[in-house]
C-alpha cells in the first residue's frame, strides 16, 4: 500500500514539474520578446503547441527505433526527475530518492540523448546525424566539468545521496555549497549552460543551419513527446542544481524562485553571447571548467 501512495505522489510531482517546466519556457519566450520590444506569445503557448502536435491526424514512422527514440528521451527525462527529491522534507515531492541516486541521475541525463540518437538516426534525414554528432560530442564534453564538480561535492559531503546533501546545506545561507565550495559551483554552472543548450552552446538544434537537428523527422505525437520531455527535463535539471549547489528548497515557493533564478542565469548568458562552433564549445568545456573542477577537487580533498 505504501508503494501505491508513493506512486500516486510521484505522478502528482511529475505533472507539477512538467507544467512548471513548460510555463518556464513560455515565460522565457515572453522575456525574450519584451527585450526585443515585442508582445511575445502568451505564456501558455507551449501547452497549445503540445495539444496541437498531439492532435495531428497523420504521422509518418520510419521504423521501430523511430518509435523508441522519443520514448527513450522521455524515459531519460522521467528517470532524471524521479530520483531527485524536489522539496526537502515533503512527502509528496520527495520522489524515489535512494542511497546512490546522484550517480543514477547523472546516468539518466546522458541516457535520453543516446536513445534520441538511435531514433533520429533511423529517420534517415542527412541533417539529423549531423545534429546527433554535435549533440553527443558537446554532451560528452560538458559532462566532464559536471562530473568533476559532482565528485568534489561527494568528497565534501561524503555521500552520493541527494537528500543527505540537501540536509547538510540546511540552516542558513552560508551552509550552501555556493559558499562552502564555490569552485565546484562555478564549474557546474558553466556546464549547465551546455546542458540547457542556450545560445553559446545552441549549435545542436541550430534551426537556421541544420533545420532543428536531431528531431528534424519527428512529427505529430513523436514531437509532442519530445516537447513534453523538454519541459520535464528542464525542471529536473534545475531542481538538481538547486539541490546540489543552492541549498535545496523547503517549500514550493522557494523551489520556484530558486530554479527560476538559476534558469535566468543561462537565459541571460544566452541572450548576451553569440553561438560557438562545435569544436570551439568542446575546447571551451575541456579547458577552463575542467581546470576549475580539478582545482575544486584538490581544494576540497586537501585543504
Amino acid at each position, binding site marked *: 500500500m505504501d508503494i501505491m501512495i508513493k506512486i500516486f505522489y510521484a505522478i502528482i510531482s511529475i505533472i507539477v514539474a512538467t507544467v512548471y517546466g513548460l510555463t518556464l519556457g513560455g515565460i522565457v*519566450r515572453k522575456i525574450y*520578446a519584451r527585450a*526585443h*520590444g*515585442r*508582445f*511575445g*506569445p*502568451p505564456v501558455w*503557448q507551449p501547452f*497549445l*503547441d503540445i*495539444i*496541437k*502536435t498531439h*492532435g*495531428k*491526424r*497523420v*504521422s*509518418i514512422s520510419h521504423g521501430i527505433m523511430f518509435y523508441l527514440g522519443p520514448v527513450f528521451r522521455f524515459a531519460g527525462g522521467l528517470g532524471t526527475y524521479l530520483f531527485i527529491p524536489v522539496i526537502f522534507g515533503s512527502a509528496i515531492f520527495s520522489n524515489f530518492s535512494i542511497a546512490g541516486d546522484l550517480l543514477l541521475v547523472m546516468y539518466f541525463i546522458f541516457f535520453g540523448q543516446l536513445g534520441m540518437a538511435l531514433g533520429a538516426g533511423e529517420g534517415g534525414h542527412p541533417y539529423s546525424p549531423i545534429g546527433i554528432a554535435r549533440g553527443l560530442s558537446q554532451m560528452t564534453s560538458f559532462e566532464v566539468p559536471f562530473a568533476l564538480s559532482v565528485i568534489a561535492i561527494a568528497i565534501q559531503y561524503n555521500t552520493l545521496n541527494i537528500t543527505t546533501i540537501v540536509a547538510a546545506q540546511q540552516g542558513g545561507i552560508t551552509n550552501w555549497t555556493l559558499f562552502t565550495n564555490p569552485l565546484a559551483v562555478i564549474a557546474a554552472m558553466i556546464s549547465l549552460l551546455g546542458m540547457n543548450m542556450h545560445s553559446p552552446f545552441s549549435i545542436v538544434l541550430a*534551426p*537556421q543551419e541544420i*533545420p*532543428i537537428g536531431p528531431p*528534424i*523527422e*519527428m*512529427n*505529430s505525437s513523436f*514531437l509532442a513527446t519530445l516537447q513534453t520531455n523538454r519541459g520535464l527535463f528542464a525542471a529536473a535539471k534545475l531542481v538538481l542544481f538547486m539541490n546540489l549547489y543552492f541549498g535545496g528548497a523547503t517549500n514550493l515557493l522557494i523551489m520556484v524562485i530558486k530554479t527560476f533564478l538559476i534558469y535566468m542565469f543561462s537565459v541571460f548568458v544566452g541572450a548576451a553571447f553569440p553561438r560557438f562552433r562545435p569544436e570551439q564549445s568542446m575546447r571551451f568545456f575541456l579547458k577552463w571548467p575542467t581546470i576549475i573542477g580539478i582545482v575544486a577537487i584538490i581544494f576540497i580533498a586537501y585543504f
Partner: protein
Amino acid sequence: MDKKNIKEIEKEMKLANKGLSEKEKTLFSDARPKTVRPLNKYLEKFLNWARAESLWILGFGTGCGAIELRPLMTARYDMFRYGIAPRPTPRQSCVFVIGGYASMKTIKRIVRSYEQMQGPKFVIALGSCTINGGMYYDSYNTINRIDHYIPVDIYIAGCMPRPESLIAGFDKLKEKIKANECDGMNKYVENFDWYKKNQKRVIKDWNMPDYNW
C-alpha cells in the same frame, strides 16, 4: 476468382511511380494516401481551437512574397503574439505559406513539401500571381492557378500584400479552422488523380514518387 479481384484492386490502389527507375522503386513507398476523418465531434472542436491558436508556418521562400514574411517576425508586426511561429521542416509545420509566384521549378518543390507535411495542413497563397498569374499571367514559367495543383484555404490578394494583410489572412484562417471548414488534406486525397494529372502536365521530368510520404 474473388481473390484475384482483390489482388487486382490492391494493385490499382498502389501508385505506379512511373517516374522512378526499377532500383529506386524499392526504396520509396507506393501506398496511396487515405482520407482520415476526425474521431469525435467535441474532441475535434477542442483540437481545432488548439490548431488555430498554434500555427507553425513552413518557411519556404518560393517567390518574392517570402520577403513579406520576414517583417512579421520583427517587433513591428510580431506574429508570435498570435501563436504563429516559423518552423524549419515540413514534417512539423502545419501552414504552408506560398510566397508569391510559383514557377515550373518551384511547383515541384511545393508539391513535395506539401505532401511531406502531416495533416491537418493548411495552405495560404500570397499575391495575385497565385490567384490568376497576376502580372505574369502570360509568362511561360509562372503557374497561373495554384489551386489546381494543391488545395488552398486562404488567398491573400495584392502585389505584394503588406504584412498587415498577411496578419488579416492568418486571422481569417483561424476563423475558418475554428469553424471546421479547412479540410484541404482530405480534399487532396479525394481528388488525388485530378491533382496529379494537373501536376504532371506542368512538371515534365517527374523523377519522384507519385506521393512523397
